[in-house]
């Protein structure tokens, strides 16, 4: 088992948001987490990544058998957890090349590997750019600075391709994307899918799932996963809307 979340409770400033989440993810799987706004989808992603503003008040998260709460944010990342941000932050003056090189080398150091020589690193950048079909000159610009919404999301996918995570969590990576950008994001995920990694795709809409076909779909509502099923559940949700879930819960 890659990720095992048991009865997870978490909140912010004393306000509980996750109220007993259970989720199991195996290698080779793609999970979609859906649900209305404000039900805790992004909180779940942040808590797995270790964001300190959130307090875990109960339950456990095991990743490759390790208790994640004992790992720092950066160590979780170095162990192969990647979070694709809903709102990627700008870091003025820091080129994506420099940013990625620092990240790749710190991860390599953690694994006891030597630094990647500059030439090799640049070749890797080019190759991954091609893989995720990014043609624009994103890599020489400062991290997310002045990027359009679509460019920011493509940049997240590019970074994912560079870091080759074991568990990638994409937090509403599809929101605000036009159809071309959506396709690039989805293609990126599909190209990186392997039997030894897994994806958790958080989305509000079904349309991303036309391009990324999930093995499992979960509905998060009021801090709990209230329904799980196969990819057909997404279609059902699209058809009936979330009101159906809300009614069921009442």
């Amino acid at each position, binding site marked *: 088992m890659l990720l095992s979340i048991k009865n997870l409770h978490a909140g912010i400033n004393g306000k509980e948001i996750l109220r007993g989440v259970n989720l199991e993810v195996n290698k080779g799987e793609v999970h979609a987490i859906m649900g209305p706004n404000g039900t805790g989808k992004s909180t779940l992603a942040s808590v797995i990544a270790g964001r300190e503003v959130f307090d875990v008040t109960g339950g456990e998260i095991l990743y490759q058998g390790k208790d994640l709460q004992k790992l720092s944010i950066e160590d979780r990342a170095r162990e192969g957890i990647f979070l694709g941000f809903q709102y990627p932050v700008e870091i003025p003056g*820091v080129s994506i090349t420099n940013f990625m090189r620092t*990240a790749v080398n*710190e991860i390599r150091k953690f694994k006891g590997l030597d630094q990647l020589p500059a030439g090799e690193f640049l070749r890797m950048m080019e190759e991954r750019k091609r893989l995720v079909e990014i043609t624009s000159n994103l890599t020489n610009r400062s991290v997310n600075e002045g990027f359009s919404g679509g460019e920011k999301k493509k940049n997240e996918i590019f970074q994912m391709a560079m870091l080759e995570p074991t568990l990638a969590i994409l937090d509403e990576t599809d929101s605000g994307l036009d159809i071309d950008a959506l396709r690039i994001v989805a293609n990126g995920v599909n190209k990186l899918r392997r039997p030894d990694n897994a994806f958790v795709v958080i989305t509000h809409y079904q349309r991303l799932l036309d391009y990324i076909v999930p093995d499992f779909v979960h509905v998060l509502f009021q801090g709990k996963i209230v329904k799980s099923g196969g990819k057909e559940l997404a279609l059902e949700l699209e058809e009936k809307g979330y009101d159906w879930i809300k009614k069921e819960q009442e």
Partner: protein
Amino acid sequence: MESEANKILDEVTQGDYKYGFVTDIDTEFAPTGLSESTIRYISAKKNEPDFMLEFRLKAYRHWLTMTQPKWAHLNIAPINFQEIIFYAAPKKKKEVSSLDEVDPELLATFNKLGISLDEQKKLAGVTSVAVDAVIDSVSVKTTFSETLSKHGIIFCSFSEAVQNHPDLVRQYMGSVVPYTDNYFAALNSAVFSDGSFCFIPKGVRCPMELSTYFRINAANTGQFERTLIVAEEGAYVSYMEGCTAPQRDENQLHAAIVEIVAMKDAEVKYSTVQNWYPGDKNGLGGIYNFVTKRGICKGSNSKISWTQVETGSAITWKYPSCILLGDNSVGEFYSVAVTNNYQQADTGTKMMHLGKNTRSTIISKGISAGNSNNSYRGLVRISKNALNSRNYSQCDSLLLGARCGAHTYPYIQVDNKSSIVEHEATTSKISEDQLFYCQQRGISAESAIGLIVNGYAKEVLKQLPMEFAVEAQKLLSISLEGSVG
């Protein structure tokens, strides 16, 4: 969360000063304290011509009538000038003409600081840099002087210039910063002991970077150096200075003067990486750095560019300035000033537009951490005759943590209607979002702060000569080891 972020910041900004060692060298001192006899002692030691002694005494007598300025946003403990040694020189057996004759202890000191005085030792693929190495009150070695003299360039210690080129010294010394200019300039003019002298003749483009490395070594000693750069018509030079000092509990005084003269079509680039001992984490010790730097664009189309990375000193008081006298002349000021722990900096520039179509650019990036205070103070003055002149100023402050301060004091005076002055200012913090984003990519908090700060300062760092840029980037990260809010 705020406290968590502050904790990370603290860890990151608590780095140790790497240059705090003392070299054990046989040193000769002037008697402690300041009086006319101290000045006569210094002048006699340097075997100076009469005009130099007269200049010093006039400056001293003027200084006695002045009081220490209080307008800066600085809290300065009283300085007792009678407890300071104004002249300290490593003893030497004879005149040094080759490297073999330089005291091996001194060579080792400069090697330890990463400064090579060996002309043969070049960095791969990098053009060599000529170095004037100044320890306490004297220059111990100037490299590449001979190579440079083939181009007619004079690059030597100030003392040598006084001996060998007295007319040039007499013509230009005090012409940009008169001894009456301010309290610390008067003090320097009275007691200055060495520094660098550089003269680039008409039409010559200096083939290598010139640099001076200043090192304070002796205890209870002040360093008062003076640098004079003259670029004749059409000449070009890029000049760099670096500074370090041992770690001591007492404050030490450094009061310097730099004067630059640029004639018609000449260009001078002056870069500083200032890393004097900043004092310890509780604010004990550190260098008081009171510096007057000014350049004059005398001829038309001339250009003077100041770039500074200020990370050291307990107190920094300096305003590298440009007098834009020649028509179409250009003045630039690029600054990164970092304060941490209990450091205080009040730094900025003055751009005096006198000629027509003169242009100036000011880019100032302040970074404050710990309990420090960091002020930008800048004057842009466009005179009545400086028609069609332009200034653009950008002053950004970055705060790391909740206990530090950033202050901006812009003074703008425009006396004609055809000129344009722009001033932009921002204050920001390293956000928790930025840190989390970096950490989520596997980057440690320390590296993340280093990356973000270097990114923030990039506009300034890219102005530095390559030899300096890498060093400056490292220094920025180190200076902030132990700071996020």
